């Protein structure tokens, strides 16, 4: 089994907290598109409801990010200096070679694809309600044609499944695509 860790943006000193995971994912996309450094992290304990995601930013960029949010119609609960108690997402993925198939594991989520066709054959792990929904939406679809999990789902399980999907796609396009 191989492990890999994705390169992360430099550590910032500010945090943006949101009401839910989809808001955070949308904001990450907007901020990245605008060219600013951003990283997904857990909010500090006072902001945790059970399935939460926050963004780490450079606090000096707060006015610019607020302007981008306004322009794009995005919203957040608060932008503030980073405090103790935040946590990083588990960024490590584990890859298992299963003969004709490859399984990629990211935290509690696993995605398996067929090496010869690039088709997603199974999704396992997780416990949030969008995972069975993503199972219906993604299993049987080629990686290159499937919608990314984070475009469909809502939860931290989805964020981890998206991480596994990203790695599956990279493996398929990098070595196996025919």
């Amino acid at each position: 089994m191989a492990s890999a860790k994705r390169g992360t943006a430099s550590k910032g000193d500010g945090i943006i907290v949101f009401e839910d995971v989809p808001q955070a994912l949308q904001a990450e996309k907007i901020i990245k598109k605008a060219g600013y450094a951003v990283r997904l992290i857990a909010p500090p304990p006072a902001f945790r409801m059970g399935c939460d995601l926050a963004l780490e930013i450079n606090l000096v960029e707060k006015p610019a990010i607020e302007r981008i949010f306004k322009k794009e119609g995005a919203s957040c609960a608060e932008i503030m200096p980073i405090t103790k108690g935040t946590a990083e997402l588990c960024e490590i993925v584990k890859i298992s070679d299963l003969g004709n198939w490859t399984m990629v594991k990211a935290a509690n989520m696993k995605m398996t694809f067929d090496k010869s066709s690039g088709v997603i054959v199974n999704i396992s792990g997780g416990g949030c309600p969008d995972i069975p929904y993503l199972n219906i939406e993604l299993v049987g679809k080629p990686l290159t044609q499937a919608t990314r999990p984070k475009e469909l789902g809502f939860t931290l399980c989805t964020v981890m499944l998206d991480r596994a999907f990203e790695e599956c796609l990279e493996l398929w396009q990098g070595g196996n695509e025919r």
Partner: protein
Amino acid sequence: MMLIAGTIPSKDIPLTIGSVAADGDFLTVNRQRLPRIQGTGAMISAALKITEYFELAPPQALIVGDIGNGRGSREMYRYLINNLVKLSPQYLVLHYCMPYIDLMQELCQAIDKCSPRPVTIADAGAMYGAKAAGLSADFDIMTPDFSEIAFLADSLATHPAYISHHLFNCDLADIPKLIKAAHENRSDARLLLVKGKTDYIAAGGEILEIINEPDVPVLETIGGTGDTITGLLAALVYAGVKPLEAAVIAAKANRMAGKIAQPTPATQVSHIIDAFPSVFKEYLCRWSDICTG
């Protein structure tokens, strides 16, 4: 009565409660159809196979559609909080749902008000919520997999997505240490069945049983094969089997069904579920003194 509560991956299924019945490749609960796929559907399907085999009343299920936005989960929690004492189940199984800390706290208060208190089993999002709320010790049984026992062992994580890298990188041989750490954090239930290449059954941080045969590694790739273990275990307890023995039988039966089904990583969980009746017929009497006929 055993009540199983969990969400279904649908935008349209309203909050529904009723007896579970098989309907070809689907299940029905009070005329609502649900697929036998990863999640609550697979878990209920496995539980139903046990109740059918022992000719017991089928499980009662509380289901609601939720595709992850949490609306159905909130309805489910609210219904349980407001009606649990009246429903008074002897066995309460909580499964896929959003892990809302505040609602889990209220639900545990409602469980405490039940007399007698139901046997409580948590897996999936309900287990995440219980741990994040600091209420794992309120549960009788939890059924984590490898990454989830690392989550229970991580005192700071409020979701498996935030497991510390050093815990996620643990070797499978470290599972006994993770079980001990989870107990020291008060993040374990009274009985744990840790599902994986080797299944560990533990209580109070100590390993009681280890099951690793037959070895069917491909089961890890098949979505729902952990859910089926939880369903088997819950229904065996409902059938009167002691929790420890029920956990051993559930782990063995899931493995044996995997062996009989001869799956590949592309196999779907319904194929494994369909193998359970032949496993029960062939092995239950050999593994225990619970026999029928």
